[in-house]
């Protein structure tokens, strides 16, 4: 197998893991075992997988409520994730975080915020800390297209550009903020806008392709590590509803056809052979994680008031 094939296979496997994890979440949801709003990344897996593969383990990532994919791609433990969704002691955060606040600081995922755009300046601050220590680590902030409308995005771009902070602004452009399309919300082109701060940018339209995402990220990371911020925008597609496990095409705010077009590129759908080859092993991994969650105890009163400070 060529190294490119190997790479494809490796990234594919992680993407498949994410997809099947979220499929499992969909299956489990009606049982009420997961009592947490879930924002699924189904359709968007390749962004997380490609991007994280281009990072070092000690590079830090700040993410959003839609972060199952980044949690897994950055190397978070699957059993702890399921236990967290279940609200159990074995969960990442002993059930205090739920789906919206996954983190794995041991592999660099420094938190996920459910307040849109709020983690963007965190990455800038972490990057500046690295820079001051002359460390080669970088910080990444992952956010949706909608997040760029918040004022703090402007403040963060400006500050990062001024200080030459080694931060990667990674925008997952699924074209939607909840049910609102981008043109309703944004008068600016994201790249041109970021460029006006003197920030180098790139957009990748093939967000289904983890290898392409990885390559784009590698290039971006190189520049960031050399000491400048970079904005990478990756087109992607959210297959499911904004929050929850259902589909919502019947509400008419978007067209099934647009997602169908995207699916025709999606390797996790198109490369059936590889899906079939890998699924059994991946499913076993998931089954183990779910079993761990199921058997993990429920947090009780002893946990209620710990770790407040």
């Amino acid at each position, binding site marked *: 197998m060529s190294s490119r094939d190997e790479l494809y296979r490796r990234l594919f496997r992680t993407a498949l893991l994410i997809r099947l994890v979220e499929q499992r979440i969909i299956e489990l949801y009606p049982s009420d075992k997961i009592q947490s709003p879930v924002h699924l990344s189904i359709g968007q897996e390749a962004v997380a997988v490609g991007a994280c593969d281009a990072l070092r383990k000690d590079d830090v990532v700040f993410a959003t409520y839609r972060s199952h994919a980044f949690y897994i791609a950055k190397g978070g433990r699957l059993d702890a994730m399921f236990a967290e969704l279940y609200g159990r002691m074995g969960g990442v955060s002993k059930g205090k975080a739920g789906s919206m606040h996954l983190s794995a600081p041991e592999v660099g995922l420094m938190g996920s915020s459910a307040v849109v755009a709020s983690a963007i300046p965190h990455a800038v601050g972490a990057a500046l800390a690295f820079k001051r220590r002359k460390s080669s680590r970088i910080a990444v902030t992952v956010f949706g297209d909608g997040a760029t*409308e918040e004022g703090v995005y402007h403040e963060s771009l400006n500050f990062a550009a001024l200080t030459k902070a080694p931060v990667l602004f990674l925008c997952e452009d699924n074209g939607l903020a909840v049910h609102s399309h981008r043109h309703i919300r944004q008068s600016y082109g994201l790249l041109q806008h970021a460029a006006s701060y003197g920030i180098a940018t790139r957009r990748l339209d093939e967000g289904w392709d983890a290898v392409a995402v990885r390559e784009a990220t590698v290039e971006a990371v190189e520049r960031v590590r050399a000491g400048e911020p970079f904005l990478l925008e990756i087109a992607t597609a959210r297959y499911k509803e904004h929050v929850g496990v259902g589909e919502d095409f019947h509400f008419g705010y978007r067209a099934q056809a647009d997602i169908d077009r995207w699916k025709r590129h999606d390797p996790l759908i198109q490369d059936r052979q590889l899906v079939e080859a890998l699924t059994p092993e991946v499913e076993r991994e998931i089954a183990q994680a779910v079993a761990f969650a199921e058997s993990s105890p429920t947090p009780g009163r002893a946990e209620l008031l710990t770790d407040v400070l």
Partner: protein
Amino acid sequence: MNVTATKQKPTATRVLSYAGALLETMDAGLASSPNVFIMGQGVDDFKGIFGSTTGLAEKYGADRVFDVPLMEEGMTGAAIGAALVGDYPITTHIRADFAFLAMNQIINLASKYSYMFGGLMRCPMLIRVVVGRSWGQGAQHSQSPQATFAHYPGLTVVMPATSQAIVDMYPQIINKHPGPVISIEHRLLYNLDFSVADSGSKIPLTSYVARPGKDVTVVATSVMVIEALRAAQYAEDKAGIQAEVIDLNSISDPDWDLVVDSVRKTGRLVIADTSWLEYGLAGEVCRQLVMRDPGLLRVPPAMLGMAKAPCPTAKSLEDLYYPSQHETVDAILTQVKGQEHGIPLPTERSMTEGYKRFRGPF
């Protein structure tokens, strides 16, 4: 579930959900004047702020009811500007937590505009914020900032607990009240049905007695009013205790005399609020009592609120985090009969029928 919000026997009643009451008053507000408009993220989508704005964009046009980008501070500022030139803006935040992004506009601008300029300008507007709870809302989707906002003069803060409160109060606010109003609505109330009287004496922009009684005073806010009413009923059924439940209703302008008179009568007090107790609403109730008469309370009051921590997501922790029906009943019984009251408590921990069923939409 049916809860009658006022003690008056209404001439005619109908059943109306909290979301339905909101939709009705939004509709009526828009109909009342072309100056009224609604803006907020998703106000014109098919979910329509949990059903409270659904269909209004179609009915009144996209320049009267419109979606905005993610821009809490900017939106609130734009609302102020519109108010200053004669419009009546209604803005929405699907979680009260997001209003912290607009704190500067709310506290430093809206609440000060009238006074700071010596009454030359007014800033009438309605800011609707929704408190989240249940199903793993977690630390950032569950806050209830009534004490924070009510601390600042110039803001009117209300917490409608029932459809009746909305149907009665919103028409007094929209395009009528001279200053900025923050209405803190509770997500768990949206799906509840209430019995509503269209005539009869209206719930005013202050406190009212939701249930008369003589043995103990329960001062409650928002969804805790519903809890308190249920608990009061239980205490009456099981122990013949007559708890007086006061819906504080207006947080910035409560009827303190009503509260004090009730405590003067009962000598016993339970405070049931939706937020943290520390530096919260409960403190203000205590302050108003001791200022008027430090000898009113026969025993230390009971206080129910969120545990002193951010909100956890796990159901098992959330159940401990919020006051349960069990604890509310126990507080009432203990006030009247002491800790050894020996009366069996209700077993189910959950709060309302609606609460048990709640699983979004978020």
